[in-house]
């Protein structure tokens, strides 16, 4: 009953099931690792965005100072067209700031999304491996049962 063929069938089935589970587990583990990396990338992108905002803020301040200096030196009143010019410049500077913020956020979101994808992939791989293991177990069991491997 429990001869070499039966032992091989049972052992092989266990190996197959274990291998499948181990495969899923490892894939999930790698996916989680990839997700962690992507989250770090997202964080880093956001940090870079903040640095760029800081630099833009400095540039805005400098630009406004230069404008003030220029207005003062020229005696241009901050009304009428010059005012409009100042407003326009300020608006442009704000737009750059927002664009930069937007870009970094978008970059961070890209990483976050990829991290999520990796996690999802890991979960899927693990789930698939469970099913694969289940399939191997079921197949092995039914065939083994059919042939009387399990007594």
């Amino acid at each position: 009953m429990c001869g070499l063929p039966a032992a091989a069938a049972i052992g092989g089935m266990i190996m197959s099931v274990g291998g499948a589970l181990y495969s899923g587990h490892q894939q999930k583990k790698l996916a989680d690792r990839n997700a962690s990396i992507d989250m770090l990338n997202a964080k880093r992108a956001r940090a870079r965005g903040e640095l760029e905002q800081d630099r833009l803020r400095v540039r805005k301040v400098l630009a406004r100072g230069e404008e003030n200096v220029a207005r003062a030196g020229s005696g241009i009143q901050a009304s009428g067209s010059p005012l409009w010019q100042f407003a326009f410049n300020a608006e442009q500077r704000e737009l750059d700031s927002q664009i930069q913020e937007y870009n970094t956020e978008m970059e961070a979101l890209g990483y976050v999304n990829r991290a999520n994808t990796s996690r999802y992939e890991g979960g899927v791989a693990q789930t698939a491996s469970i099913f694969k293991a289940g399939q191997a177990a079921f197949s092995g069991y039914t065939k083994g049962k059919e042939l009387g491997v399990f007594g």
Partner: protein
Amino acid sequence: MAKLPTYVSQGQISKQEIGGRISPSVGGVVGNSVSSFGKMIADWGLAQKKAEEELAVLNAVTQAQDKFNQLGVTLDSNTIKTSEVPAIFEKGAQKINTEEGANLSSPYAKREFAQKYSQLKVRHGAAARTAARKRFINEGVYSVQNGVANDINRSGTIDKRTNPDGYKLIQEGIILKFQKAWQAGFYSKKDAGKALRNALSDTDEGQARMMIRTDPEKAVLEITKKNFPHLNNLAFERIAKLAQGASEAAKNDRLRKEDKDEAKREKVLKRNQETTTAKIAFSMMDQASGEDMSGDEPPSNSAILEMVSKREITGDQAKELRNLRENLAEAKTDDLEFLKLLDNIDEIADMPLSQQEDAIEVAEKRMRALMAGGSLEINDAKTVRSVIKSIRDKSYKSSPKVVAQKWLKAALGGTDAEISIPGFNEDPLDKMRRTNALKAYHDRVFNGNEKPWEVAKDIWSDAVNITNLKLSGFLRPKYGPIKAMDEYTVEDIDQSRLELLRKYASSLDPNYRGEKITKQNLRSQMENLTGMMSVIMLKARQARQTLGPQPSTGPGANNSNSSNNSGTGANNVPGRVGAAIGG
């Protein structure tokens, strides 16, 4: 106004993302490999297990097949009723299933076995039922055929000419049997009809055969008149041919038997006629010799004629008897014929007993013929009868009369027919002298009752004196000395004999390459030499007697009592002569 430089950060923040991502599939490589390996092992194990199970199934199926075969054989037995076969088969099949399926554990094996078992069961079940059905039909057919065969045999014991109802009853019984057999399904309608026709034909054939056996000639008529209506064409032809042959054979047998009976009757009649004739002839002879025949006289000539009309004797025999009666008194013996007759009778003594009586009958007939022809006197006829009587009572060979007669004949140069010397032509005068001498011997011994050896010696002495034999009449001895034949001596003859025997002994050697000497050749040469020796001795005797009586060399001279003739004749024969005769 001086303008202070303003420094704004120029550094670029790196956009390089953090690397080190690894595809998740890489992580599954080991596991997948392990899984695949495990699957391979499992598949191998399962395949092995499946092979084991298939082998077990095969064994079980084989065993089941074997048991089904045994079951089939068991069921195909005359001890099992065909109606019980399905139930017994079902029981046996269940037992096979239980026994052979019990060793199978896996569902796969059980299912496979169940499938094969079902096929086996269906196949063997059908075969068993078919066999049972066939057996049922065979038994039925056998029963019918057996019954019909008995009926046919029984019909052969009934003669329908004397018991038509019994015969008809048997035929009706046969018809009924086939009807029932057809209704029971043992025969198709066509086959039943055919078998019935054949059976009825067989009954008629048996009837016809019986008639052929008992009365073949009448059977032919009955068959020709078609009084056996059930005979089929083949049987009719066969029986007609058989009847024809039997009829002809019976007719031939009858005729042959009649012929045989007739021949037998003729033979008996002939023998009776012969006996009657002999009896009358002897009666006449006795009467003629003066015996008292009162009350037993021989029949007269008229009575003999009457006997002819009654076929008690033939016409020729009557004539012979008449001649005998007429010639008895006047008869004169023909010496040559008489001695020839005695010679013939002498040979009878050497014949086997079974042949002697027939030979005696011939001799007696010859004697009667001589008497009827007037060539044999009554006294000589009595001599012949006396000799015949001594042959019949077995005293002939040892009789001194016969021994002395033989010695005399040999001493006078006579030989038996069977040892006659080829090429030797005896002088007719010598033959006549010997005949006369023997005739004289018979007169004196058989009729005159003188002593045989005295008579033989007297006659021999007289005959020798007149003998004139010549050695040149003989063949030259092959191994004798080269000299004139008349000069041969006793020593020459002895030498020739010795050399001849030596040559013959040499020729018996398988390696001998010289001239062959056959037994016959040896015998003839030895006889030739013996004859020569006899002549030489006779001549020597004659020479001695010419010179005067020589008591020491004559016949009987060495016997002090020469008158003693009481049967020791051989002692009276001169030594050298006796040797010559014996040689």
